[in-house]
């Protein structure tokens, strides 16, 4: 099936055989939701971010074809089915049951210039007749796709009342295997939530390339990228992200960040830090602090791999029930000035303190000079701990549930 091979290579198009795909087919199921409402302007921004492929409904594929002209443009994927179940109570006319229909044939998709077609496989919604009908419809679709050498991308989705938190990962494994057995050439899979269970999903896929989907919008870019990074580590071949991209304030920038993880092998922290454009510092609001000390624990764990608060470079003063005082490095530079051996300097780009192990004599002058007593000098462990802003993506900021710690650009402007 040379046609399938060639078309898949236009989707998993990098030398790494991975893909960053944007789903923008929501309007067909949910109406004009943000991002999908003004699809043309959204797609214009999406294309700037150089996705490998874009998923559209049949109607919009015809309307938006100008975005797919030329070999440097993304591959076009077309959704060939429709389902009512996503219209929950937050939407007008909530669905009263799960219904599913095939909306277009592979031949129609071919005529529109598609490189592949996408269809759901729902399991767990309690109507076995519908489930059987859908599986039979997918089998027909798979045969027809074989006929034309058109890749079939199946999106297995555990959905409905029989899906629980306890069985969700198992149902993803089940549905993935059902999709593979029926003839999926690529999979668009929900992330199970942890690498161990997702590894079982990848095993169940039996070599069929799996792309993870984004689902609802992640709270922060780093959260989103962490999921991508984890999934890639255990064998996912990329992502199919919808709302995380099309509802982002800057879809092109979001895509560039995702591409950096998927295609350039960067860690989420490197990507987030790489987006900073100038000097930054931590800004704290002690009134919001609840004294949970998660920042201290996560700082110690990030730098030393242990939950030992004495190794933390951020400190919380005060006892229950408060008030609490957050002490964080202000990059005042007094430690740098005090260092007699030149082992400390301020990073030119971010402004954080950089420690040089080779020059350090562990004299402790830095610790004495720090007005907040935040420098940890441990010659026994061979390190001097001074806040390094985690390279531009501070973990204390990320984990503080009260948003009492924020990284800001020097000058008081908000984070880039």
């Amino acid at each position, binding site marked *: *099936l*040379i*046609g*399938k*091979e*060639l*078309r898949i*290579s*236009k989707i998993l*198009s*990098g*030398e790494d055989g991975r893909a960053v795909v944007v789903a923008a087919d929501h309007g067909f199921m949910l109406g004009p939701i943000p991002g999908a409402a003004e699809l043309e302007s959204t797609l214009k921004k999406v294309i700037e971010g150089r996705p*490998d492929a874009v998923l559209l409904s049949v109607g919009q*594929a*015809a309307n938006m*074809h100008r975005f*797919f*002209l*030329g*070999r*440097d*443009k993304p*591959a*076009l994927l077309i959704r060939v089915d429709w389902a009512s179940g996503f219209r929950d109570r937050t939407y007008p006319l909530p669905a009263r049951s799960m219904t599913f229909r095939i909306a277009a044939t592979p*031949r129609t998709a*071919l*005529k*529109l*210039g*598609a490189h592949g077609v996408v269809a759901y496989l729902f399991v767990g919604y309690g109507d076995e007749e519908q489930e059987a009908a859908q599986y039979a419809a997918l089998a027909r679709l798979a045969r027809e796709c074989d*006929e*034309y*050498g*058109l890749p079939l991308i199946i999106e297995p989705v555990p959905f409905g009342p029989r899906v629980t938190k306890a069985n969700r990962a198992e149902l993803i494994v089940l549905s993935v295997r059902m999709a593979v057995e029926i003839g999926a050439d690529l999979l668009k899979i929900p992330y199970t939530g942890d690498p161990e269970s997702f590894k079982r999903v990848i095993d169940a896929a039996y070599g069929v390339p799996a792309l993870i989907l984004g689902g609802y919008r992640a709270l922060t870019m780093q959260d989103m990228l962490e999921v991508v990074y984890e999934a890639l580590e255990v064998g996912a071949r990329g992502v199919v992200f919808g709302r995380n991209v099309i509802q982002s304030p800057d879809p092109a920038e979001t895509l560039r960040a995702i591409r950096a993880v998927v295609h350039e092998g960067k860690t989420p922290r490197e990507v987030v830090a790489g987006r900073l454009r100038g000097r930054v510092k931590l800004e704290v609001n002690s009134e919001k602090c609840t004294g949970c000390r998660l920042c201290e624990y996560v700082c110690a764990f990030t730098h030393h791999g242990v939950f030992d608060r004495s190794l933390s470079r951020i400190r919380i003063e005060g006892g229950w029930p408060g008030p609490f005082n957050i002490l964080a490095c202000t990059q005042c530079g007094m430690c740098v000035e005090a260092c007699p051996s030149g082992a400390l300097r301020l990073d030119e780009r971010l402004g954080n303190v950089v420690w040089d192990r080779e020059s350090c004599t562990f004299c402790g002058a830095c610790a004495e000079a720090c007005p907040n007593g935040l420098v940890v000098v441990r010659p026994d462990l061979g390190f001097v701990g001074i806040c390094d802003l985690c390279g531009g993506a501070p973990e204390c900021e990320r984990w503080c549930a009260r948003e009492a710690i924020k990284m800001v650009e020097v000058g008081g402007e908000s984070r880039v």
Partner: protein
Amino acid sequence: LSTGKVIRLSDFIDPGDGRGLILELDYGSMIGFFERKYGLDKVLEKASRFLDGVILNRGLARQLKRFFMGRRAPALLLRADWTNVWRGPEHPLPAVRKRYRDLTSALDAVRYGASGVVTYLIMGQESDEDEAANIEAVARLARECDEYGLPLLVEALPIGERVLRENYLDALGLAMRIAVEAGASCVAIPYPGDLEGLKFLVKSCNVPLMLMELDGKIARWQPSYRVEDIAEEALKAGISGFVVGRGFLERPGFEERLNSLRRMVHSGGGEG
């Protein structure tokens, strides 16, 4: 054109400048082992970065599929037919009567993941019946391409004893226009011999018109030219690029010449 045709046409004709550069490597079915001097693998290894499309038959498309993987790769164009017109007097088995057959369907091209189908429209055949059969095959293929949103590139060729210097432009115009009317999405023709003639043909062709090199003598009279010598003027006259093949490859330094032709076609656009 349907959406699919527009998208796939843009695989081998750059939508930015409306031009493309195509290499024809499909002669094996018509003249045999033609590439003994250079090897097709080696040619594509060196050339594919300069190309927008490559014409192949089904068999070699399978063997050479790795050159078409990924979005930056040239588009695969599948030859749908066969003719013996290229088997001239120098061939070990010269054609006694000119023959033509359609061999591959648009559906086959779809199955192969091709971005387009290529066929000949040969005008000047000895028998009017043969001519009609050829036109019928092209028209049928065009209808089938419509079904799948697949572009059809027709190579319109005047052949035979009736084609003379005096009627060459008219014969070419006739073949080209029949191709367009039958449903070609793009037409390739030999150089008519002069720029004025070419300008006339560009004007009367309302789909992209490309120039091809003639790799053999197929008409009583036909112009003798090398694509690189006429490229600049031809592009100014409005053509949409070139289809080069065996003759181009067999001249020394084809890689450099191909690169330079690409730069001309895409106005300094470098590698693809």
